[in-house]
């Protein structure tokens, strides 16, 4: 038990928390952008996987990590634009369109990876991102190494949270997005192009989701496995609800999940007598419990799930 209370343990735990939380933060921010505009994007799991795969393959072939990240973002944009075509322009059920994109992307990711890499005994790896220390801040006790000696992508994720917040609440674009999500008819009658707004939000959200996926194969690990995303996309969807569609609260949820994920790993290593598989369940169960807790006050954007078409009166 004393082992838990050492600074080394806590520092390690917090650092791991940030690493675990980062892809979810990217995913949550991306999903918030989509849902605030009124589109539930269940393609997130597939988009993150394609991002992970594309980023990895790009880095593998070009040697450049940032090119990989850019490629992942691009893939995210493309898949989301396809989602926009299905759900926004054609007005198909958002549930099924998103799931279709996830299923399609999952198959596609595995297919392309297998084509590119074959089935070697030792799967290929890349040289992943290294951590970058922020001078002075990284010297602080406990929190220093945990928060300020991290991958650049972690810093980017944290920076994006206030940026997305400012976008949503302090800019005219953000007001337009929120209006489109709450009452698309209202937005239409003041001249906002509802479908274009939704498409742009999907694209931006998709880029973030792709980058979140790339983080998994280019920083967190250094190889691509089929289950590298492992349900984090769905966790992000849950975190959006948990955070009541607010970027800051969503980030908090992601950090809580990251904390539990990191904790579960470390507790295993400490020889607790609970079988480790049951530890793996904890984060998912906590998410479900959290959703129940917030369900009463959760207020989804009123226009979520409904395609917008100018009324066709009979």
């Amino acid at each position, binding site marked *: 038990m004393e082992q838990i209370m050492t600074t080394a343990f806590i520092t390690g735990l917090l650092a791991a928390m940030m690493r675990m939380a980062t892809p979810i933060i990217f995913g949550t921010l991306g999903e918030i952008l989509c849902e605030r505009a009124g589109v539930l994007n269940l393609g997130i799991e597939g988009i993150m996987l394609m991002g992970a795969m594309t980023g990895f393959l790009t880095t593998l072939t070009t040697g450049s990590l940032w090119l990989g990240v850019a490629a992942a973002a691009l893939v995210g944009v493309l898949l989301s634009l396809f989602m926009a075509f299905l759900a926004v322009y054609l007005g198909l059920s958002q549930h099924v369109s998103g799931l279709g994109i996830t299923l399609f992307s999952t198959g596609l990711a595995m297919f392309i990876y297998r084509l590119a890499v074959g089935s070697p005994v030792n799967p290929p790896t890349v040289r992943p991102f290294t951590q970058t220390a922020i001078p002075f801040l990284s010297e602080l006790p406990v929190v220093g190494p945990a928060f300020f000696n991290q991958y650049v992508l972690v810093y980017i994720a944290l920076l994006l949270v206030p940026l997305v917040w400012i976008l949503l609440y302090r800019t005219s674009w953000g007001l337009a997005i929120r209006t489109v999500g709450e009452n698309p008819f209202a937005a239409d009658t003041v001249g906002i192009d509802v479908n274009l707004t939704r498409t742009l939000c999907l694209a931006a959200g998709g880029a973030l989701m792709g980058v979140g996926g790339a983080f998994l194969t280019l920083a967190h690990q250094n190889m691509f496995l089929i289950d590298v995303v492992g*349900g984090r996309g769905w966790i992000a969807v849950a975190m959006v609800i948990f955070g009541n569609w607010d970027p800051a609260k969503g980030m908090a949820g992601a950090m809580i999940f990251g904390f539990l994920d990191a904790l579960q790993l470390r507790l295993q290593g400490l020889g607790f007598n609970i*079988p480790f598989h*049951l530890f793996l369940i904890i984060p998912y169960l906590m998410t479900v419990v959290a959703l129940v807790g917030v369900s009463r006050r959760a207020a989804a954007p009123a226009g979520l799930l409904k395609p917008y078409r100018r009324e066709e009166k009979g």
Partner: protein
Amino acid sequence: MIVSKRAPLPGWIQLLVPVGAVLATLLLSAIPILIAGGDLWLSYVSLFRGALGTRYNFLETCVKAAPLTFTGLAVAFAFRAKFWNIGAEGQLLAGAIAAAWVGIYAPPLPKALVLLLVCAAGFLAGGAWATIPALLKTKYRVDDVVTTLLLNYVMWHLMGYLLFGPLQMPGSSWPRSPAVAEIARFPVLLIRSRFHLGIVIALVAVLVVWFVNSKTVFGYQSRAVGVNPRAAAFGGINVNAVIMKTALLSGGLAGLAGVGEVVAIHFHLLMDISPGFGYSGIVIAMLGRLHPVGTVLSAFFFSVIIVGAQSMSRLTGVPTYIAEVIQGMALIVMLIALLLTEYRVKAVRD
């Protein structure tokens, strides 16, 4: 683009829609095949030969179609009531676990009774697992998409715990259960094949679901709730009860998919007992337009793809994952085709 509602199309055209979607999907499959550098003609031929060319292949396709039929029915029945059951995968695993338990420690009863027990255990386990998200939906208004999804992962890890623990084959370090007792295994019905009892049960399930849908009060209520829960409640239907019962039946069907895999195919409980059957069920259900007969036909189609992809891969080098790609494409094509039956789409340039 302008999308405007069109007058409802006559019934026979509606039936052609899935057929058209299937053909379009097969055509579009040429793209990934070509990208993989496969010979187009050889690919298609080896796909169909591999799935349907010989008696054994055809029966194998039927074998693979059984779990797909169960999960397809599970999802179709749930979606019809707008219970977004994305958790068929987890419910399948629950059913598999329950079936394995009963099958390994089979009580000394006549075979028919043991089989009945195995099926009942699997059905109830899957059904129970599905009622959790249903309860959360009815009592706490928690979104069913997210909860059914998350519970898939919970059940997956639960199974991992069991297979590395209480259900692990003694002396082994792999996550594998002891063998299912002979008496609990589904009998093979046709010689020189793996065509087993579970396939017949799947076909019976199709009839049962059809019967429930069209001939029972519950079927009517389920549909009403799916169409407009507020009006259904207004009319006196107990919406929560309907959702719970729907979840139970849906989860139970998915559970039966797991049962078959354990007592007819693998005879052990394994971590990869399901290569995503639960998720495939979604595509199968949509392609089958949520109708039981459509579902079983669509399950057969996907089985053809999955089985055929194996032999295609051997002969042309196209990765077997093409089956998943085709599956994803089929869903999207089907969605677009469904839309076109209800709306006219005009591209407009201003």
